[in-house]
């Protein structure tokens, strides 16, 4: 096990190197010049060249890349092109923490709503409960965020006055409820589908029939045999949910006024803020690799057959 983890950890920096080089390379071949974007329509060829020189953009790509990596190893991810004088880490970390907290809340809702509902739907296969759960979750999943978010704000903030229409006060504040529900409930729909399918698969297995026929307690069968086995595919999904803090929350962050990382990422793409973009890809890749590693370890705990 330890050997496995060590192997995975050794691969991590190599994956990160490849990912970061791709961003650097793609940035270089994409049309649009950061210096010109900063100068906007005040640009003259001299000004563009002077600014490119100052930003180090006139050096060859490979040299730029390696000097970036050298600094990155020491924790310096460079300076933002757009926010003048600001270090990328200074910009990213506070926003990243906000997005992580929001994403944890989202994951909690998705998992704790989706898994029990999916399980329950599977157990009630053949009755009206199963299609009702599946269809209503599909309905919620199909509703676009730019519709549900303003609707929730109008009801809970403007009409009922329970919360503010916009703002972020941290994880343990009621402000987090609406944005977390807005992303978490459609997210739960996916868990419902996976959990339902996976549970149905397990329920039909011989060992479950055997468990029933030998008169085992219903709860024991549910928790010890069905859920434990049907949750395995869910773990994979969970890994992607945890790692996916950059995707999916952009519209929610904008509508609810949450100072998260998504909008920074979008602006960085439009403005060709390569240092911010590269840092985001590095952090995103690290999270994905680590999340997968954690999930792999979790597999071995949930399912002793996996070594």
């Amino acid at each position, binding site marked *: 096990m330890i050997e496995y983890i060590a192997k995975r950890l050794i691969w991590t920096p190599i994956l990160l190197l490849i990912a970061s080089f791709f961003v650097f390379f793609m940035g270089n071949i*994409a*049309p*649009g*010049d950061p210096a*010109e*974007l*900063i*100068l*906007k*329509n*005040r*640009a*003259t*060829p001299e*000004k*563009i060249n*002077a*600014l490119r020189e*100052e930003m180090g953009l006139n050096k060859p790509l490979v040299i730029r890349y390696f000097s970036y990596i050298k600094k990155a190893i020491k924790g310096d991810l460079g*300076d933002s092109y*757009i*926010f*003048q*004088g*600001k270090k990328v880490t200074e*910009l990213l970390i*506070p*926003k990243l923490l906000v997005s992580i907290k929001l994403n944890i809340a989202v994951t909690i809702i998705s998992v704790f709503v989706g898994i029990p509902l999916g399980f329950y739907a599977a157990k009630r296969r053949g009755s009206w409960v199963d299609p009702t759960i599946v269809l209503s979750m599909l309905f919620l999943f199909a509703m676009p965020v730019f519709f549900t978010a*303003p609707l929730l*704000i*109008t009801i809970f*903030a*403007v009409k009922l*006055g329970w919360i*503010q*229409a*916009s*703002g*972020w006060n941290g994880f343990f504040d009621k402000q987090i409820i609406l944005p977390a529900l807005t992303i978490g409930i459609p997210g739960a729909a996916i868990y419902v589908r996976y959990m339902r399918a996976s549970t149905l698969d397990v329920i039909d297995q011989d060992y479950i029939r055997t468990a029933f026929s030998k008169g085992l307690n219903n709860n024991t069968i549910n928790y010890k045999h069905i859920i434990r086995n049907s949750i395995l595919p869910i773990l994979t999904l969970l890994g992607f949910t945890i790692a996916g803090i950059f995707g999916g929350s952009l519209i929610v*962050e*904008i*509508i*609810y*006024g*949450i*100072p*998260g990382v998504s*909008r*920074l990422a979008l602006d960085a793409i*439009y*403005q*060709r803020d390569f240092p911010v973009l590269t840092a985001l890809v590095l952090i995103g890749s690290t999270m994905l690799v680590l999340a997968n590693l954690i999930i792999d370890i979790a597999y071995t705990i949930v399912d002793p057959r996996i070594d």
Partner: protein
Amino acid sequence: MNKIIVLALSLIFIISTGCATEDSSSNTNTSSENQSKPSLSPNLNEKSQPSTNQQGEKKSGGILKRVWSDPPTLDPHLVTDGTSYGIVIEVFSGLVKLGSNPNEPIEPDLAESWKILDGGKTYEFKLRENLKFSNGENVTTEDIKWSLERAAHPDTGSTVAEEFLGDIIGVQDIIDGNSNNAEGITIIDDEIIQIKIDAPKAYFLAKLTYPTAFIVNKQNINEGGRNWTDNPISTGPFTLKEYKIGQRIRIARNDSYWGSPAYLDEVVFNLAGGVSMAMYENDEIDITGVGLADLERVEDPTEPLNKDLIVVPPSFSVSYIGFNVNEPPFDDVKFRQALNYAVDKQLIADQVFSNLVRPAYGIIPPNFPGFSQDIEGLKFNKEKAQNLLNESRYSDPSTRPRITVTVPGTGGSPGLTTEVIADMWRQNLGIEVEIQQVEWATYIQDLHRGRLQSFSGLSWQADYPDPSTFIDVLFRSDSALNNGNYSNKEVDSLINKAQTEQDITKRVNLYNDAEKIIVNDAAWLPLWWGVEAKALVKPWIKDYKFYSMTIPTYQYVWIDKDIY
């Protein structure tokens, strides 16, 4: 400020304007032989606001809250955009500022008065007594000189120093990295400073209102390094209390300010976004723009929000479709004129935009210095358009080069204006046009490289109250911002004459003559002048007013706690 915008982005900028009247009268202008005269003054007061309850005493205290965007910079010398400008002019200040008096738009700020000597080539400023930075240190003429030189220094990295300070003798040498000293700036004593410029340019004072000419604290910058704007020492009516990127900016009353202290304790700019109408209705913010989606509702007199509704005067801006006059078929003036005559802007304004836009037939917007009603422009005339097309070198569709209008954006829709205009060209002239939408970064690069044959989605906003901010900057042959490569020797000569003409009437006439030629040459297809917008202001916010240019606002605003 130059702004390339899509229409939707303009609102936040437009509603950022405002100022009050009463206290500004205490900024007595004791200057000047040659101050701007009425004929060259923008009518900033065109639509003034609200039903402020002037009865009772103005009260200090309270916090004004509004939505804003992250400013790309808070260093006044680096400001080039409206978002940064709106914050920086509240925190920093310069020798002169833009004021609300339409007859004298340039008001004294740190300078109590000024004289114009040497036939308009030397400006002598007298500083106010006991001027202080926000940390209590005195502001001296040394600080003024150091600040102006710092703005020009290559290490500062200002992209607009040449544009706003380049007239000062010696500044170009600093920009070029050949000197650290602007010979044209002379300290006479602790209170008097002289600035010499290379020619008697009438707009020079107006340019000094831009943040590039604002005063900064040497020690603050030397000690603060690249992050000095996190804790800036400044001279404006407010100081920066907090800036959390993507979250909020808080500015607080500057007790060391030379004028009457601001009434408000703080102004909080929410940077995190949110649905601003909902935030306004929930009393989380005090001011918001009204989007088209909410307009009908708030204009309904029975709607409670209706009483907060305010008309925001149009900004001094013009949007246009640019033609690259070096590229066929736009190298033929008759072809360009035909395209102009073929567009019924009034019809588009009526039918498509419910009169929320004002058709532009010239360059300089109404009420702006130098605006001329005599310029009729190339108004819709189908017959004339067809005749001109027939007379042009490109009358034969089989040999006519393919026409592409490029628009910036990622939405998949090129924008209604461009589509409708292309349709009018098709219907009235039989000219087929391809609309190409490219992502913003590519658009701006191609624009600078001169690769675009024709370009839409652009607008230009005045930087300072002088016609040169439109005519010189956009149409002089050698101007870097003349993206369509328009070149006319007569226009250049008129602009050169206008730059140094001291007689205001003659100067305005020179600019009018230049503008007439530009319009007649159909260098652009001017589309719309700045549009009127609607905003909501809470009833307890008093003396918040909207103007067509962004001028320092919040120091005059107060909160009526009896209503609050």
